[in-house]
């Protein structure tokens, strides 16, 4: 490591020297642009028009079937007076604030366990990934069965240990926790990303720590977790965006009704209904941009905290 520090010192000097020269900056600008070019083109060709159009729609009564009329802020004003809209915001934020941290906790925990040199590692890893592959219809039905208050396995087990289980999805107080529980089931994708992140941690760090006599806990705290932060950060952002857009499970579970008593009416579910069932694409577009503002706000907040806890090796 000492040698490394030396090199790093030299590099820093060189870098500082190079930084100063405008030809270096020009060169880097050109490279940066060229490397990013496919994406820039992709945005211009495939995304720019849809983005602009969805803003435009949000000010009209576009119905998909007809162009509708310009209504200015009418859709936004109507939304403020729409009770279901507010219920869906509440439900969605509730879901997001609990499920995202929970999924990170479970995901990192399982990933760490799956990363140990344990027998049957490959099989375990595959099993934890399975729910992400099973189609939503099957997932939905199995959950309705598992959580059935009457015959479901979950309550059956609870009864065995003397607990009278709740009504789960049929009970408005337990429906959101049930949905959050199901979210944990889908944590397999995040686990894959954590595992990839764990592979990226150089073995010499651990070797060096072991020489210093560090135990498992210490290694976890001082090496593994800090070096995992970029990936945790990624899952935090994506988890938040994903949770705010949660759609498939609540939609299939409740058949689009959000029952019981509106407790599972999620934001994008209501947006989808407006767009494709009520043919109110303008209204739905306005909902999309409000959702965007909420998610953007949350993301900015997460980015602000980034400096305190995310450890990028590449940063100076």
């Amino acid at each position, binding site marked *: 490591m000492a040698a490394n520090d030396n090199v790093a010192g030299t590099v820093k000097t060189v870098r500082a020297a190079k930084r100063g020269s405008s030809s270096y900056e020009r060169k880097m600008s050109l490279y940066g642009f060229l490397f990013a070019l496919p994406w820039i083109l992709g945005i211009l060709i495939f995304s720019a028009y849809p983005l602009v159009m969805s803003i435009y729609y949000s000010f009209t*009564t576009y119905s998909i079937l007809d162009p509708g*009329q310009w209504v200015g802020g009418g859709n936004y004003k109507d939304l403020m007076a729409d009770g279901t809209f507010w219920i869906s915001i509440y439900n969605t934020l509730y879901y997001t604030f609990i499920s995202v941290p929970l999924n990170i906790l479970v995901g990192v925990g399982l990933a760490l366990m799956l990363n140990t040199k344990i027998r049957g590692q490959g099989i375990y890893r595959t099993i934890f990934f399975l729910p992400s592959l099973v189609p939503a219809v099957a997932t939905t*039905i199995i959950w309705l*069965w598992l959580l059935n208050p009457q015959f479901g396995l979950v309550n059956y087990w609870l009864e065995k240990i003397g607990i009278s289980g709740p009504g789960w999805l049929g009970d408005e107080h337990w429906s959101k926790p049930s949905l959050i529980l199901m979210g944990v089931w889908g944590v397999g994708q995040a686990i894959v990303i954590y595992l990839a992140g764990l592979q990226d941690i150089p073995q010499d760090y651990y070797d060096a720590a072991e020489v210093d006599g560090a135990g498992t806990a210490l290694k976890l705290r001082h090496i593994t977790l800090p070096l995992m932060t970029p990936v945790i950060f990624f899952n935090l952002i994506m988890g938040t965006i994903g949770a705010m857009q949660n759609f*498939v499970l609540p939609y299939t579970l409740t058949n689009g009704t959000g029952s019981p*008593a509106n407790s599972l009416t999620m934001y994008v579910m209501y947006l989808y209904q407006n767009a494709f069932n009520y043919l109110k694409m303008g209204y739905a577009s306005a909902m999309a941009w409000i959702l965007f503002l909420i998610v953007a706000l949350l993301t900015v907040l997460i980015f602000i905290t980034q400096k305190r806890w995310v450890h990028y090796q590449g940063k100076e």
Partner: protein
Amino acid sequence: MINRKPFILFSTTLLTAAVALSGCGSGGNSAEGGTSDSGGSSGKSGEQTTTVDFWVNWGGDFKNDYQKYVIDEFEKTHPNIKVKMTYVEGTDKLLTSIAGGNPPDVAQLDRFMVGSWAAKGSLEDLSPLIDRDGINKDDYYPGVWAEATYNNKVYALPWGTDARALYYNKTLMQKAGLDPNKPPKTMDELDAMSAKMFKKAGGGKYDEIGFIPWMNQGFIYTYGWAFGGKFEENGQLTPNNPENVKALEWMVSYAKKYNIATLSSFSNAMGQTGINPFWTGKVGFIVDGNWILNDLAKMKPNFEWGVTPIPSPAGLPSTTWSGGFSYAIPKGAKHKEAAWELMKFIAGHDGTLLWAKRPDGTNDITAMPKVNEELKMDQNPNLKVFLDLMPTAKFRPVTPVGQKLWDELARVQDLAINGKGQPQALLDEVKKNVDNELAKVSQPQS
């Protein structure tokens, strides 16, 4: 989140049952075809064939059978028209294709949606063609025809219909000391009989259920009509009609009497798993459609059952309500004339008959009373229960906000049975919400 679960739409459709279809435009390659009358001249060289792009809602067996029993016959009698049938699930694709300007020539559309789609100007007005070719609306049930009509113009040809009735479990009735051959005729009888059938298991949960009003096809619509209510009067939507309120109050009485949380374990969880609770043999009475007869024949449940009209309060006649599909020409279709030829056939007498008399179509009700008679459907005693209700069957209001009204009613029904609000106030809210929507839709189109 990347793994966009593919099944969203499957289950949506599956569970909501209301959908229309879509596929993608074929590059039609020829000029407008002639009419069916040109059959004799079709042998002439130089006559061009038109390919009609036809989207249906179901693939698999449905599509194969429909091709075999109906479309092949059509092509035989109309040699200058070729039909390219494509199955497309859900309305999303049809909507997208209309927005993109390349819709199919004929699409199968839930009749329930014709009103709102027509209001957006996205379906061809068929009235001139109907007048020209002398299509007789009296060949169809009046309500079925009305569902395809918006603002006095016809936008679709009806195809198929259905009805709802009360299925009862004779075995359970017997167990409860009831005469299994005397199903309830009035709401009071239903309440009293079902009360005897609820049986609690351990933990305060029900092992057997007499009746849960909101299971399967039990909606505010179902009971509003049974109580003599109306959902449309003098051109106004009337979800808060006093009889509808009474119906909802009656539904709520079950939630109160039998404890909603315990009932939900049956109704909520089972209904959505694709399991029909009635098949479990643990449910005394259930409101469901005639299509269940097909499944009951296949499943061979280990209990005796029967079917009877939905009870109504004493003194009121039995009611049912109907839905079904239709065929429409989306705006922007490229082969209107040939599309119309196809529609006239498949939704007309010949096509309807060809389809209805297929080997496993025994429990379907067609939109044409005459075809139902020809097939002697009323000789099937179970189906007869439904058929006899057809002449007075109710239909959901034809309105641009039909789907919204449906969803709003479902929403307040759920709130009411969960004790969140009073039926009167909730239905007033529905009235307010749909009227608001209607006011926006009714603004003159640019």
